[in-house]
């Protein structure tokens, strides 16, 4: 009883710090979500200081649920996260299988492939939205303009000119627009996180049992059967982990959304909270509680799925 007490106590600082980090701000969020609390109000200056006298019950929650952006933000959160997960897992498995076996320059290929993962989100967003996806000055715009110029130059060509003159002028896609800004975020985050999936799948592939594969070959399994019945099941656990870790990170995407379109046509819950927090703290807090609930639902689901394999 005595000798192990001190060593066990050594985890308490970490636990207490995390507990405080969780409980105090979350408690305040919960409190603010039930009161009227705004940063500026000329009409009702008493609402600018948090107090129980401004109790609003579930009013903030109703207000948030009735706001036009709320449902959209939830849908959009799930759309963005789901799309990224889908793309990174598929691309990750394909690329990992592609580069798994030794070939000339494998080391360099690995280094190039992993690099995007270390780019800070702000730089990632700035780089993609300006220098690559910009419809005028980015590579996107330049490429489209180049194609248009080539077609235009063919108009005067003998014999086939009439054919090219029938072609319309192509318009580059603007990724800052309402309809497309979510895609821009999905593209840039997929670019950043596919390397992560590749790295993990590749590591896992290297621990794949070669003898098992050879046995399968002797049993007459073709390439596809080997992949389908040996490799894919072997990747089951890493895929689950990749999904969990990415879900943790992508549910709170913020910088990319802010930089791409300032939330135009593309809000997620964190962004919506940020918008409310410019003035209406009550609503921001209620949205925050919704975000916590959503995160918890996903967390329970994911921890069930992955938690056990982690503890083995």
């Amino acid at each position: 009883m005595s000798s192990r007490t001190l060593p066990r106590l050594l985890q308490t600082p970490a636990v207490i710090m995390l507990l405080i980090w969780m409980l105090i701000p979350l408690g305040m969020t919960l409190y603010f979500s039930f009161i009227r609390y705004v940063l500026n109000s000329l009409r009702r200056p008493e609402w600018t200081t948090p107090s129980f006298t401004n109790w609003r019950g579930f009013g903030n929650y109703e207000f948030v649920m009735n706001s036009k952006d709320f449902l959209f933000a939830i849908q959009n959160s799930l759309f963005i996260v789901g799309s990224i997960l889908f793309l990174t897992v598929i691309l990750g498995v394909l690329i990992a299988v592609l580069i798994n076996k030794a070939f000339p320059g494998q080391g360099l290929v690995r280094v190039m492939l992993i690099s995007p993962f270390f780019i800070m989100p702000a730089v990632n967003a700035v780089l993609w939205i300006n220098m690559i996806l910009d419809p005028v000055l980015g590579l996107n715009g330049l490429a489209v303009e180049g194609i248009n110029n080539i077609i235009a130059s063919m108009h005067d060509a003998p014999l086939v000119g009439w054919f090219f003159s029938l072609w319309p002028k192509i318009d580059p896609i603007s990724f800052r627009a309402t309809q497309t800004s979510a895609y821009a975020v999905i593209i840039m985050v997929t670019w950043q996180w596919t390397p992560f999936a590749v790295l993990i799948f590749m590591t896992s592939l290297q621990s794949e049992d070669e003898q098992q594969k050879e046995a399968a070959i002797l049993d007459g399994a073709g390439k596809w059967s080997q992949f389908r019945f040996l490799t894919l099941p072997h990747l089951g656990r890493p895929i689950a982990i990749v999904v969990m870790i990415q879900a943790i990170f992508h549910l709170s995407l913020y910088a990319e959304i802010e930089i791409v379109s300032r939330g135009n046509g593309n809000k997620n819950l964190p962004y919506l909270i940020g918008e409310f927090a410019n003035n209406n703290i009550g609503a921001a807090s209620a949205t925050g509680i919704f975000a916590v609930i959503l995160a918890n639902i996903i967390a329970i689901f994911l921890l069930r799925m992955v938690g056990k394999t982690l503890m083995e």
Partner: protein
Amino acid sequence: MAIVAQTSKLGTVGRPILAWIVALLFFFPIFWLIFTSFKTDADAVKPEFLFFFTPTLDNYLNMTENYDYWRFATNSVITSVLATAVALFVGIPAAYAMAFNPTRRTKDVLMWMLSTKMLPAAAVLYPMTFLAKGIGLFDTHFVIIIVLALINLPIVVWMLFTYFKEIPKDIIEAGQMDGVNTWGEIKEILIPLAWGGIASTALLCFIFCWNEAYWTVRLTTTDAATLSKLIEGNRAPEGLFFGRLSAVSAAAVGPIVVLGWFCQKQLVQGLTFGAVK
């Protein structure tokens, strides 16, 4: 032998070529960032200079003048290094306790720690701002260090826990028999034995701190603002300053990308909590 027999000619030649194409595609945006950083702002948006231009170092030489780069970089270094130190200082004893002196609740504690990572930061955005301003710590290194340390603490503890688990319990017990106290166990046995694991945990924590872009943006204005804030605040509307923005962006991510190359393996083990090796 069987494997060799099955591999077609196309596979042996086509596979590496395809792999190279994919790798170049993924690396291209980074290459393009560096490439553009050597163009003048004016050249950077002219199609005729897309590939052929007169390279210049001005964008890098003028980083201080244009963006006050070094001030932000210094803040990034200070906050990331100290936050990593704090996370390790708290995380090492915690992971030690859980790895070598587990109780029935240890697994739950670990899972709970991981679940705090899932708490959306935005949900506590305003309370944090409110608290930081209330105690006069808004826009200070201190608050950024504490927040960065705390948001990375679960991953630090998890990573260390998986590394520590690999040390045979016998060795720790031999130490107890040989007369070390708890502090001695950590200092004389644990830290020397898990040195590699601790270093890679520190490296990964540092990378996460450096790249963090929510709290560092929302809890600072000028004094403690990091490179994330700098880039976020200069997102260059409509193609102005592409050259100089590329240079400062490259300078902001360069050190980390290089660091990352060196810790790929540890990254996998760390990020998957040892479940993938």
